[in-house]
């Protein structure tokens, strides 16, 4: 896989993560892997190196999609015994393994949502920021299944990132208001909780979150608004924050006679110390985290 193809793939990951969240992206990537294996035409000798090439590319993505990386590492271990089999057996084995990985992340998400439901109370005014399918499911199920009556403040990013959140809230008639994320200071005193998802939790005590989250978490911390992070343990990374390959982009801007170089980052790093509650599939986990 050449550099250009890698760059294209990583850009696709970033675009998808922005609108789907990293958990949903993991499912989508695994489904894409299954469809690709089904369509692949190659010899028995070629198939394992092709798996390795794609697995290596996924494992080096910018930023790291940690749950996907964990599941791809498991896939590599589990496909190894098939090396001596025929082409179709390897193909069938790969599809079966990948399907179990999809089931695994879906189950993990389901359990986090189950735990998250306990954190929503009637009368809450919950802040939500970027798209997280887990946070979204918690809100929808708490409203629909548990009958909790709460309101949501959506901190607006660009339309594509906020659209999915708004559509889901509209669909189940959860009362909500939308404010630009940079005007949070005017609404924060009314809020009772901040709900977050994450791309990764690192062993050096950071949470990799969508760009803009660090400021919101900081303000909540100062104003003593409890911050809840809902995260599957599949998102716990072995690598420190500086090894998460957060994408850094520099572009030249020229506007109204002003020229400057603009540097942007795809994700934020939030110190875990600012998070009040870390909810995993096993419940509240803050005091049992591995750091």
């Amino acid at each position, binding site marked *: 896989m050449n550099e250009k193809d890698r760059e*294209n793939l990583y850009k*696709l990951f970033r675009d998808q993560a922005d609108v789907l969240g990293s958990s949903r992206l993991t499912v*989508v990537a695994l489904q894409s892997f299954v469809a690709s294996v089904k369509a692949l035409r190659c010899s028995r000798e070629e198939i394992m190196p*092709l798996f390795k090439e794609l697995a290596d590319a996924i494992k080096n993505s910018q930023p790291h999609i940690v749950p996907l990386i964990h599941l791809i590492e498991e896939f590599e271990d589990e496909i190894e015994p098939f090396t001596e089999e025929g082409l179709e057996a390897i193909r069938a084995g790969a599809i079966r393994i990948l399907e179990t990985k999809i089931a695994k992340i879906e189950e993990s998400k389901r359990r986090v949502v189950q735990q998250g439901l306990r954190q929503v109370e009637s009368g809450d005014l919950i802040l939500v920021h970027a798209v997280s399918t887990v946070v979204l499911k918690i809100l929808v199920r708490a409203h629909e299944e548990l009958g909790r009556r709460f309101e949501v403040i959506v901190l607006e990013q660009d339309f594509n990132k906020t659209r999915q959140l708004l*559509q889901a809230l509209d669909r189940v008639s959860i009362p909500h208001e939308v404010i630009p994320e940079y005007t949070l200071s005017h609404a924060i005193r009314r809020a009772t909780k901040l709900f977050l998802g994450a791309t990764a939790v690192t062993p050096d005590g950071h949470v990799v979150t969508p760009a803009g989250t660090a400021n919101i978490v900081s303000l909540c911390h100062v104003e003593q608004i409890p911050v809840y992070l809902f995260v599957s343990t599949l998102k716990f990374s072995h690598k420190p924050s500086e090894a998460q390959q957060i994408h850094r982009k520099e572009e030249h801007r020229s506007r109204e006679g002003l020229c400057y170089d603009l540097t942007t980052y795809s994700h934020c790093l939030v110190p875990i110390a600012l998070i009040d509650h870390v909810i995993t599939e096993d419940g509240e986990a803050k005091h049992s985290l591995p750091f």
Partner: protein
Amino acid sequence: MEGALLPVIIFLVVYAAITFELVNKAVAALLGVMILLIVHVIDERTAVRFIDFETILLLMGMMAIVAVLRKSGFFTILSVWIAEKTQGSPLKILVLFSIVTATLSAFLDNVTTVLIIVPIVIELTSGMGLDPKLFVISQAVVSNLGGTATLIGDPPNIIIGSKVGLTFNQFPLYLAAPVILSVAAMILYFWLTRREQFKPIDTNLAKLFSVQLILQKIRFEFVSMHVDRVFLAKALGCLALAISLFVTQTITKLTPGVVAMLVAMILFVITRVDVEQMLGEIEWSTLLFFAGLFILVGVLEEKGVIEWLARNVFLRIGDNPYAMVLVVLWVSGLVSGFLDNIPFTITMIPIVKVMQSTTPIPHDLLWWALSLGACFGGNLTMIGASANIVSVGMARKLGYEITFLEFFRSSVVITLITLTISSAYLVLMLWFFL
């Protein structure tokens, strides 16, 4: 040609201003008209008489129909469907998108078509690590080819159909064959000259994976989009009604302009769209540009300039019908590559009328030569047609710069091929009918 000097100078200045984009096209044309009115070369009544309201009505009606269709989500549904069908095969992307672009362009305006197709083609091809430029150029070119097949597909045809009184059915009857052959030739040319771009990807797992991710992204965007099915059904129903009324024009005796405007008004009523918003999407400057040009050319016609041009330039070639048809085709093709084909067609219509009256050529073949030349010639350069400019602009916005020369390298060969196909077709028709 008494009193012709001032109108000729004004016409040439307006033409230069349009060609070099010195001022807005509509402003250039209407300023020329205003000067003619101020110096009393014509009066207001005569000026209004020169405007072909059938053309204006047809353009306005079609623009309104397209504005409502765009709002219905029809184009998004269509492009998602094709993207799914290609499954990331570069050859299928070229062939399927070319067929759809050509078909859409035949019934809608070319700019709308490329505005819908080009972004999705760039997304698919760039995501696969292919060079999207080739695919962008192909869609611009094919939109101009497809638009040639019908009366409503391209402005030169609208003008020819309206000014000459050709029916909707005559256009596909006479032009579908060279258009289909030209689209096929374009696909074949790209396939033969850029074989490395069309290698199948089903032996490359990483590329297959990228394509599947892109398709998932496109599907997700589609699912997130709100499509009002009733609105969509009404919009498509009205498009079908317009096409059937165009086709039955000889029975209903309704001109295409009346049909387009009638259907647009029905659409406005039954879909209850925000009419002000829809009217805002009509390209008023284009309509004013048309009106201004009709007046300028009308004055030249009245002063005898057009007849002089026809007799002293075009009829110099003699009365050999083969030579006449081929000269109209190739002059139109080459000039339209560098100048806007709308003013060129408006200028050529009275010239061709003189040629036709001097040496009658059967089956309107001179008009078909003008149509094929003016529409296909738009492919010659990046500035030859609005669809080219819009496609290149969209590619630039998405990070792919297509230079004038890059476009020209592909388009010049394709234009020569398509004009040669048209020449062969017209010669064959002449040989058959004479």
